[in-house]
C-alpha cells in the first residue's frame, strides 16, 4: 500500500475541485470535509495496490490531479478515497526524431511545458489552467488549449497511454499497446471512471520560430463567424482564433497583462460606472441587476474583436497568415498587433480574476459548449436570452474546427446556490434546444452529467460496456459522467464483454470503416462529425467534439443499428500539386512534415512523393515547398491516403517511420 494520510489538512486539500458551486458553498461556510483517505502512489504498482485495497475496504476511489476542474469531477466525500497522482512525476525521455515525450500522469502542465521548452520543444497545449492542472487531468477531461486549431486538442496529442483499471490492472493503449486501440477514444475523457492514467507518450513540436498575431474588428458576431469559417475551410491552419462577443469585447477583450497590475475586473467596473444610472455604484449593483446591465451593454455594443494568429516555421507561417489575413480584410478592420499581443501576454490570467466577484457576494462561472458554424450565432443568442435576467453574461468563441467551434460563456451574478443552479439549468436547456453539444473541453463531471447523458442517448452504452469490462464493481469515481449509472453498483455485478468482440486487438474498426482509411486529422475538412442515428432519433456528437466525456461517435458508428455519417464533398478545383525528386519518398515526406507543411494531399507516384495543397495559401505554400525540396509541379490528382503503405516501408529506420506515421496523424 502506498503512502497515505487521513489527516484533516490532507483530506481538505482534495475535498473539492474548482466547481464554482462548491466555491460558493465554501464561501458561505459549507466547506466539504473531503474523502476518508488520501493516497499518494509513486508507481503504477502503487496505483494497482490502492485500487485493490479500496475494493477490499468497500470504498470508491476518486483520481486527483491538481483539482483545477470546474465540473465537480474530482470532488470526493465520506466513503471515498482520493488517489493523488502528483507523485507520478517523471518527465522524459524526449525523442527529438520521433518528436514524442514520455511523461507521468501527475506532472504539472506548466512544468512539462517548461521542461520541453528548455529542450527546444513545446507540447502546444496551453489551457488557461496549465499552472494548476496535470497531464493525467488533461486526458481525463479531454482538455483543449488555446492553440488547439493548430496543435489539436489533448486527445490528438496522445501516441499511447498507460492506465490501471480495477479488473484488468495495468494496460497500455495506443502505439505498442496490449489493449484494444478502440478503447482509446472511450478512455480519454472518461474522467477517472474507467481506469487511472499513469503515463503517456505525447507528440511534441519544435518551439515555433515565428508568430503572427493580430486583432480584427468586425461589425457583428455573424460576420466574424463567417470569416472564421472561411479560415478553416481554406485550410489556413491558424493557431489562435478567438472571437469576443460585443460584451466580452468591451470587457474581456480589453484584458491587460499582469504587469499592468490592473485586473480586467477593474476595467469592467469602470465600464459599468461610466454607464448612465450606474455611475458611482459598487459592484453589488450591477450584479444585482443583471438584466439591466446586459441591456445596457447590448445598447453600447459596437463591433466585435477577433484575435487570429499563426505560428510555426517562418516561411510556412507567413504563407498561411498572408492568405488568412486577406480573408479577414474582406469584412474586418485590421487593429494591428497590439490586441493580439495583449491577449497573448494575459492568456492564462483571465480565468483567475473572477474571485473578487465572490468576495463581493456574487458568483462567477463559465460554460463551454460547441456547435456547427450554422448553429453558433443562434446558440449565442439563445443562451444569452435564457440567463440574462439572472446573470451578466458574455461569450467568446474559440477552438474552431472546419465544422464549427466552441462557445465559451462567462456568467457573473448574485445569489445563493439555488440561483447558481437555476442559471445552469436554463443555460443547458438552451444548449439542448439549440442542438448543440453540452460540453467542449471542461468535461462533464457531476455538473453536466444529466444533460450529457440525455444528449448521448443510447451511445452511452459504449461507455457502459467498457465500464463493465474495466471497472465492474463501480470502484472508480461513481456519479461522474453518466447520470443514470448507479453511484455504487453492487460489487458482485458480473463482468461482461458482450458487444466487444469487434474490439479485439488489431481488429478495431478505426477510424471510420464506411469511408475508408482517412487519418483523423484529415477527415474533418470534408466531413461533418455528426452521426445521425435513426430509430432512437437523436444525434451523437452534434458538434466538432463529442458531448459527453468519452468520444462515443466511433462506438456509435460501429455498433448502433442504423447510423450514417454526414459527408460533404471535399473542396476541389483549387489544388496545386508537385512531385518531389528523390527515391526515398517517405523520408522526404517526413522531412516535409517536419518542415511544418500540412499537405492536403499526399501520395507516391512512380516512386516519387506527390504533395498537394489547397485553399488560398496553396500557391505560396507550394512555392515555399519547392524552394526547400527539388521537384516539379504536376496536375492535381487525388491519392488514397497512404495510411497502410507506411508500415512496410523499408527505406527508413522503422522507429522513424512509425514516428512519421504519427506525424501524419497530427490533428486538424
Amino acid at each position, binding site marked *: 500500500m502506498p*503512502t497515505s*494520510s487521513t*489527516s*484533516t*489538512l*490532507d483530506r*481538505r*486539500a*482534495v475535498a473539492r475541485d*474548482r466547481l464554482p458551486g462548491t*466555491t460558493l458553498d*465554501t*464561501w458561505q*461556510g459549507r*466547506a466539504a470535509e473531503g474523502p476518508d483517505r*488520501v493516497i*499518494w502512489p*509513486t508507481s503504477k504498482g502503487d496505483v494497482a495496490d490502492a485500487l485493490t485495497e479500496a475494493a477490499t475496504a468497500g470504498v470508491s476511489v476518486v483520481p*486527483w490531479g*491538481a*483539482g*483545477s476542474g470546474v465540473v465537480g469531477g474530482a470532488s470526493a466525500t465520506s466513503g471515498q478515497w482520493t488517489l*493523488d497522482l*502528483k*507523485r507520478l*512525476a*517523471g*518527465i*522524459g525521455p524526449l525523442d527529438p526524431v520521433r518528436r514524442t515525450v514520455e511523461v507521468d500522469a501527475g506532472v*504539472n*502542465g*506548466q*512544468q512539462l511545458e517548461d521542461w520541453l521548452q528548455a529542450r527546444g520543444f513545446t507540447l502546444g497545449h496551453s489551457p488557461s*489552467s*496549465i*499552472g*494548476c492542472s496535470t497531464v493525467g487531468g488533461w486526458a481525463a477531461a479531454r482538455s483543449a488549449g488555446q492553440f488547439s486549431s493548430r496543435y489539436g486538442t489533448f486527445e490528438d496529442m496522445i501516441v499511447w497511454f498507460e492506465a490501471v483499471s480495477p479488473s484488468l490492472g495495468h494496460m497500455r493503449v495506443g502505439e505498442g499497446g496490449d489493449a484494444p486501440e478502440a478503447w482509446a477514444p472511450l478512455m480519454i475523457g472518461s474522467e477517472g471512471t474507467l481506469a487511472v492514467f499513469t503515463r503517456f507518450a505525447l507528440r511534441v513540436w519544435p518551439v515555433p520560430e515565428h508568430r503572427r498575431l493580430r486583432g480584427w474588428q468586425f461589425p457583428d458576431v455573424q460576420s466574424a463567424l463567417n470569416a472564421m469559417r472561411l479560415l478553416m475551410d481554406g485550410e489556413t491552419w491558424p493557431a489562435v482564433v478567438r472571437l469576443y462577443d460585443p460584451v466580452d469585447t468591451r470587457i474581456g477583450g480589453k484584458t491587460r497583462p*499582469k504587469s499592468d*497590475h490592473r*485586473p480586467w475586473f477593474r476595467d469592467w467596473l469602470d465600464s459599468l460606472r461610466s454607464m448612465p444610472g450606474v455611475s458611482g455604484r459598487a459592484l453589488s449593483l450591477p450584479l444585482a441587476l443583471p438584466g439591466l446591465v446586459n441591456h445596457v451593454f447590448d445598447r453600447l455594443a459596437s463591433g466585435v474583436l477577433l484575435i487570429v494568429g499563426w505560428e510555426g516555421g517562418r516561411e510556412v507561417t507567413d504563407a498561411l497568415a498572408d492568405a488568412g489575413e486577406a480573408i479577414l480584410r474582406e469584412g474586418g478592420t485590421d487593429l494591428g498587433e497590439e490586441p493580439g499581443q495583449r491577449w497573448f501576454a494575459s492568456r*492564462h*490570467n483571465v*480565468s*483567475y*480574476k473572477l*474571485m*473578487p466577484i*465572490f*468576495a463581493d457576494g456574487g458568483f462567477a462561472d463559465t460554460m463551454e459548449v460547441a456547435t456547427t458554424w450554422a448553429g453558433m450565432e443562434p446558440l449565442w443568442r439563445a443562451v444569452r436570452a435564457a440567463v440574462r435576467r439572472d446573470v451578466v453574461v458574455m461569450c467568446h468563441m474559440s477552438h474552431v474546427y472546419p465544422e464549427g467551434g466552441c462557445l465559451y460563456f462567462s456568467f457573473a451574478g448574485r445569489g445563493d446556490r439555488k440561483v447558481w443552479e437555476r442559471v445552469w439549468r436554463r443555460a443547458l436547456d438552451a444548449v439542448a434546444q439549440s442542438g448543440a453539444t453540452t460540453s467542449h473541453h471542461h468535461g462533464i463531471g457531476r455538473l453536466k452529467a444529466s444533460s450529457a447523458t440525455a444528449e448521448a442517448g443510447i451511445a452511452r452504452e459504449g461507455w457502459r460496456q467498457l465500464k463493465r469490462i474495466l471497472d465492474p464493481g463501480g470502484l472508480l469515481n461513481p456519479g461522474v459522467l453518466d447520470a443514470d449509472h448507479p453511484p455504487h453498483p453492487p460489487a458482485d455485478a458480473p463482468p461482461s464483454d458482450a458487444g466487444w468482440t469487434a474490439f479485439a486487438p488489431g481488429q478495431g474498426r478505426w477510424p471510420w470503416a464506411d469511408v475508408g482509411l482517412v487519418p483523423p486529422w484529415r477527415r474533418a475538412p470534408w466531413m461533418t462529425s455528426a452521426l445521425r442515428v435513426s430509430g432512437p432519433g437523436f444525434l451523437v456528437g452534434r458538434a466538432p467534439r463529442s458531448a459527453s466525456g468519452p468520444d462515443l461517435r466511433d462506438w456509435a458508428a460501429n455498433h448502433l443499428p442504423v447510423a450514417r455519417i454526414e459527408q460533404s464533398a471535399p473542396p476541389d478545383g483549387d489544388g496545386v500539386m508537385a512531385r518531389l525528386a528523390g527515391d526515398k519518398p517517405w523520408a522526404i515526406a517526413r522531412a516535409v512534415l517536419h518542415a511544418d507543411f500540412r499537405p492536403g494531399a499526399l501520395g507516391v507516384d512512380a516512386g516519387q512523393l506527390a504533395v498537394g495543397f489547397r485553399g488560398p495559401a496553396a500557391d505560396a505554400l507550394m512555392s515555399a515547398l519547392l524552394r526547400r525540396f527539388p521537384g516539379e509541379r504536376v496536375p492535381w490528382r487525388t491519392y488514397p491516403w497512404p495510411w497502410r503503405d507506411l508500415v512496410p516501408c523499408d527505406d527508413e529506420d522503422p522507429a522513424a517511420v512509425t514516428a512519421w506515421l504519427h506525424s501524419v496523424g497530427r490533428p486538424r
Partner: protein
Amino acid sequence: MSTPYDTCALCPRLCRHACPVATVWEPGAPSAIAEVLRDGALGRVDASLAQLAALACTDCGACQEACAIDRPVPELLRKFVPKVEVPTQLPPIAGTASEVAVCSGDRRWAEAFAAQTGRAVASWTPPANWHETDSKTFGELFSGRTAIVADGEDARALRGAGVVVVWLGDALGWVTEASCSSGRPALACCGGRGPLRDAHPEPAAALAQLWWARSGGQTLADARCRRALGRQDVVDQLLAGT
C-alpha cells in the same frame, strides 16, 4: 464577515505551479493554506489546524509573482506564522567545524557534506527574522568559518558580517548522488525561483537543475523550509512522504 484570505482562498490557483511545496503536497498550495486560515479566522476550524496549514509555507515568495490578482500572498501567510513561532535568539551552531551549512543546515545535509568532502561541516538553522538581526552577531557566531548557503538574502547578510560564503549549488556538487537522492518527492528547491534567482541567477539555475536531476525528475521541496526552526517538522513530514 470577511477575512484577508477571502479572495486568495477561493482562487483557482495560478500560484500553484510556482509553489515548490504544492507541486508535491496539495495542502502546501498557497490557496489551500489560505482556505484553512480563512476558516480558522471565521472559527470554522480549530486554530491548531490553521497553524499547521501555515507551517506548510516556505516563504519563498514564488506565489507572489504568479498571483493573477496581485494579492500579497506571502505576506498574508507570513502574518499568521509568527503566532506559531517567535524566535527569540540566534540558535547555536550544532557541532564544531570550520564549515557551516546554513539554511540547508539540517543534520542530514551537513553530514552529507562532511562525508563527501572529508571536512568537518556543522549545521545551523537560522530563525525567521535573522536578516533583521545585527550582523555583528553573525560575525561572532561564524567567526573563522565558511558558510554554505542557498539563498541570496542569506548570502548577503553573511557577507555583510564578513563571513566567507559558498553557494549551496556549488556545495551540492560535493555530495554523492546517493546521499541526496532520497527517492522520495521531498525536498524542494526554490533556488530557481526565489530571491537567489534575482541576486545570483547562475548559482540559482545551477542549484535548481542539480536538485531537479538528483531527484530523478521530481520537484523538490524548498531548502528554505529550514529558514525557521519551526518548519523543520514540515520538511521532515515531506521527507517522510506524509
